[in-house]
């Protein structure tokens, strides 16, 4: 991850009186899986369109793979692959036709077209139904075929717009493995638009959180949790006969414990004011003579960051 493949500077796109993308500035590094998170209408798809030169910005600009999307669109699009939000497949054609036509459009060498199409159909487990019209495919199959089409020309940079939104868990996991493989083994850069926070947490090296076209936060998932989640749940285990006294002690620490402890299966779950409260809490508990067997912070995930940024819409 040494060089930027996407550099966006004050990018703005206005539709009527609404800014779909508003003063967006960020960079994406080569080889990283970059998550672009936000509600529907946050500006994710518009950003992908702007970065591929299929939509003109109102102001600002970007360079993608060293090219200007507005003036060098065709050259840029030859190096990017895009999985659109809807599969955008010709349902009256077979899977094979869908891929071979796009192989011509992406200028895949003529001699390689057949091998490339067949290997992608096999990889995405569609080879058995390659000669059937796509209209008869399930949603998951269509999504897999659309992804295969996006990879036909071995793009340097792959844009995936909600890649697993219509997939069952098995197919979604297959896509996740594929994305990880593309980035980790083959060195592709992947830009994923999603509102699936579990997916982002699992796959992405860094994420940007968007709201109403504006960038709300940018960083690795752990950076964001540290920065934006101002509370921490911890599990506390004390001696079996000390639970009641532990509860009493904790209720007397309002500065550290910000919500009433919950007791379940011999474990107390506390909500602390933050990570920094842990040493102080531990010191107090030991000082009060409690036997602390375990004090374990619960994993904070992107979901909490997301809701913290969106004003607790949980």
């Amino acid at each position, binding site marked *: 991850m040494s060089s930027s493949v996407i550099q966006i500077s004050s990018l703005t796109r206005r539709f009527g009186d609404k800014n779909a993308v508003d003063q967006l500035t960020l960079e994406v590094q080569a080889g990283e899986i970059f998550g672009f998170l936000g509600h529907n209408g946050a500006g994710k798809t518009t950003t992908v369109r702007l970065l591929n030169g299929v939509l*003109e910005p109102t102001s600002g600009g970007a360079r993608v793979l060293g090219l200007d999307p507005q003036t060098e669109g065709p050259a840029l699009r030859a190096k990017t692959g895009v999985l659109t939000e809807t599969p*955008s497949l010709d349902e009256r054609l077979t899977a094979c*036709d869908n891929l071979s036509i796009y192989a011509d459009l992406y200028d895949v060498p003529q001699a390689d077209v057949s091998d490339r199409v067949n290997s992608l159909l096999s990889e995405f487990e569609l080879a058995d139904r390659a000669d059937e019209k796509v209209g008869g495919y399930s949603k998951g199959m269509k999504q897999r075929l*659309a992804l295969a089409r996006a990879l036909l020309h071995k793009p340097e940079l792959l844009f995936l717009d909600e890649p697993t939104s219509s997939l069952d868990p098995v197919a979604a996991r297959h896509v996740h493995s594929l994305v990880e493989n593309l980035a980790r083994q083959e060195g592709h850069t992947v830009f994923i638009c999603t509102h699936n926070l579990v997916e982002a947490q699992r796959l992405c090296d860094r994420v940007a959180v968007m709201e109403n076209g504006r960038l709300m936060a940018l960083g690795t998932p752990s950076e964001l949790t540290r920065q934006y989640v101002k509370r921490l749940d911890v599990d506390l285990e004390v001696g079996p006969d000390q639970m009641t006294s532990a509860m009493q002690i904790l209720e007397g620490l309002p500065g550290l414990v910000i919500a009433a402890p919950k007791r379940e299966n011999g474990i107390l779950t506390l909500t602390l004011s933050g990570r920094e409260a842990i040493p102080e809490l531990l010191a107090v508990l030991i000082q009060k003579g409690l036997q602390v067997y375990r004090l374990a912070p619960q994993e904070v995930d992107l979901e909490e960051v997301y809701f913290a940024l969106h004003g607790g819409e949980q």
Partner: protein
Amino acid sequence: MNKRAILAIVRKDLKVAIQNKGVVLPIIILPLILFVVFPWIMVYASSMTNVMGPSTSNIDQLLARMPTGLLNELSGYTPDQQVTVFMLVYMLAPMFLIMPLMVSSVLAADSFAGEKERKTLEALLYTPTTDRDLFTAKLLGAWSAANVTAILSFIVYAIMVNAAGWKSIQHIFFPNWMWIALVFWVTPAVAGLGLVVMVFVSARAQGFQDAYQTGGLVVLPVMLLMVGQISGVMYFSLGLVMIVGLVIWLIDAGLLWFASKSFRRSELMTKL
């Protein structure tokens, strides 16, 4: 120009179009009626009027109203033959133009408005094609299919006309130079007209049917030519056909220029 990409889009559009009954049925049924059934009905009708004697005066009156130029062209034939030649060679000539017009507009409606309706345009816009390649490919598919269909229809019509008129004329009398000009000069221009009009209509249409119905109005000028011919205001001479062709080519060029200016990826993307 990226020829490979253009041909790929043409191939795609035509493959997709022939799967649509709404596209294929009119392309099969219209020429079947116009160029296979019609000639026989015309010849049968004229033979019946001959048998019925006095009623031929209606046809005589019709011929009497025709411009002198047409009467001169028919002067080498007997009165019975004149009726056959007038009906098969001249009366149906304007109707022939409906064929390229209809085929190009129905294919263009499927290619432009239909693509929008099927939500397949977005993926196409993300390809490395230029706006010009995309526009050229979209036009070329419908235009070439319209011309090929028109030429095939012309060949079928030539066979049918000579077969139907053989009993009366006894030699091959079709096509004449006017028809050659009509097929190879006016037909491509008319196909272009249907196409470009449909590009404008499709930009505002919700889908294939909407575009096709609205774009169908482009047939009106051809209907006017037919009425003009039947009423004797004008007739399809070689000179008139050349002029009509030239005028339509000029209209095509103007409309094409405007259409190419408005065919921009960014605009198409905002309307998805």
